[in-house]
């Protein structure tokens, strides 16, 4: 089987400071991978390098494109990469407002992504937007309201709808449940898991929450100081961590 995403030696420095260094892995269709590690360990840097938001100093991010097969997204043209970002890739930001247009209605936020890939029929766009709002459990009556009038959890669900409406194959998520209270987190988790199963999408999820990782991710990567110190099956890394830092990370939280 061809990996959906194949990451080779991704390295990013900020001046002389290491953001992330020499990260490599393969992600297969339908897999969900978690990335955990302490604050400043390079998780967001790595995610942004993979999603094309940051240019890595070295390395390749090979994506299995629909039309041309595996292609290095680091060296592809900017318009081509931007097109991927609108179609096959989705990016869910930690802060919903970074991923939403706050001045546009909820329906508009979702519909905008469809228009960006060439949808023109207003009725279709509106129907699909409403359908997605429903899937993320946002009341149809709120379709014309702006996200500024939504709670944090609703904004996050709206961001997910906006991202998934175009049927992406790979979703990058940076702390998707961060800053939400526990019951809202649970709803979001349930939603994400259902989407992964029903749409067969692959996802890379950065989080510091090991319980979230346990429930959502098949595989886990542990980062420290910009480097991957351990990677494997999620429950193996959590139940039988091999590296000193992973052992510390797992033992410093209550049972997950």
């Amino acid at each position, binding site marked *: 089987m061809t990996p959906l995403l194949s990451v080779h030696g991704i390295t990013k420095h900020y001046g002389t400071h290491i953001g992330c260094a020499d990260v490599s892995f393969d992600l297969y269709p339908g897999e969900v991978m978690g990335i955990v590690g302490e604050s400043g360990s390079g998780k967001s840097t790595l995610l942004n390098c993979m999603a094309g938001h940051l240019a890595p100093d070295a390395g390749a991010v090979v994506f299995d494109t629909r039309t041309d097969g595996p292609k290095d997204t680091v060296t592809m043209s900017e318009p081509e990469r931007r097109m991927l970002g609108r179609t096959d890739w989705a990016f869910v930001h930690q802060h919903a407002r970074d991923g939403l247009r706050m001045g546009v209605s909820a329906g508009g936020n979702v519909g905008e992504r469809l228009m960006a890939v060439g949808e023109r029929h207003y009725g279709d766009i509106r129907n699909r937007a409403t359908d997605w709002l429903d899937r993320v459990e946002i009341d149809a009556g709120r379709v014309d309201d702006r996200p500024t009038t939504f709670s944090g959890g609703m904004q996050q669900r709206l961001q997910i709808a906006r991202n998934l409406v175009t049927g992406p194959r790979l979703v990058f998520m940076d702390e998707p449940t961060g800053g939400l209270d526990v019951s809202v987190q649970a709803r979001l988790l*349930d939603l994400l898991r259902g989407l992964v*199963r029903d749409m067969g999408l692959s996802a890379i999820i950065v989080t510091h929450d090991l319980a979230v990782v346990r429930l959502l991710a098949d595989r886990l990567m542990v980062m420290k100081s910009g480097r991957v110190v351990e990677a494997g*099956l999620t429950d193996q890394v959590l139940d039988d961590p091999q590296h000193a830092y992973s052992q510390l990370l797992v033992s410093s939280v209550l049972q997950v």
Partner: protein
Amino acid sequence: MIELKNVSKTFTLHNQGSAIIEVTNDVSLKVSAGECVALTGASGAGKSTLMRMIYGNYLSQAGEIRIGDVDLVRAEPREVIALRREILGYVSQFLRVVPRVPTLEVVAEPLRAIGIGAEEAEERAQSLLAQLNIPQRLWSLSPTTFSGGEQQRVNIARGFAHSYPAMLLDEPTASLDATNREVVLSLIEAAKARGAAIIGIFHDEAARARVCDREIDVSRFTPKAAA
């Protein structure tokens, strides 16, 4: 169906002075289709550890653990995931679920994961829940608020939803009343009859005697304390 060859396990506790715990050494065993084998031995002898090694959530240091054509000691995560989806079931001692998901879905999920339609999966889930005496009014609720015994039965229903060719059972009859214990034992007998290879841990001696064909005392794999 399940075959272990010269398998060993040590834990290295890096943050506790790099203490090394040698749990089990040079384990070889074989369980055929239709057979149920009990792991026995005193508390701390390493029964659960060996079971987790076979499931792949504890890493083995040496040897080979073959289930079907996969060697769990060397397999890639995605091979282990596929094995667990299709071939290898595990009823652990505790139920771990995504909050908010209804019991019926929790039980039907392993079937949905192998591509069975929602309706058929739910029918099978309903019949298992009914068999295990989970009142129907609870089926639409999340099991997170259920009693210990109810959670254990939901866990068993989930574990038996798909007809796995190989199964691992860690104390499946613990904390169950006589009626439900009987149901679980008959589920195990039915799984054997359809050809499943089963490894179980049972503190309940009568249960063990009834469903197990052999016992393996894991203390014989415990390394001699280093002088």
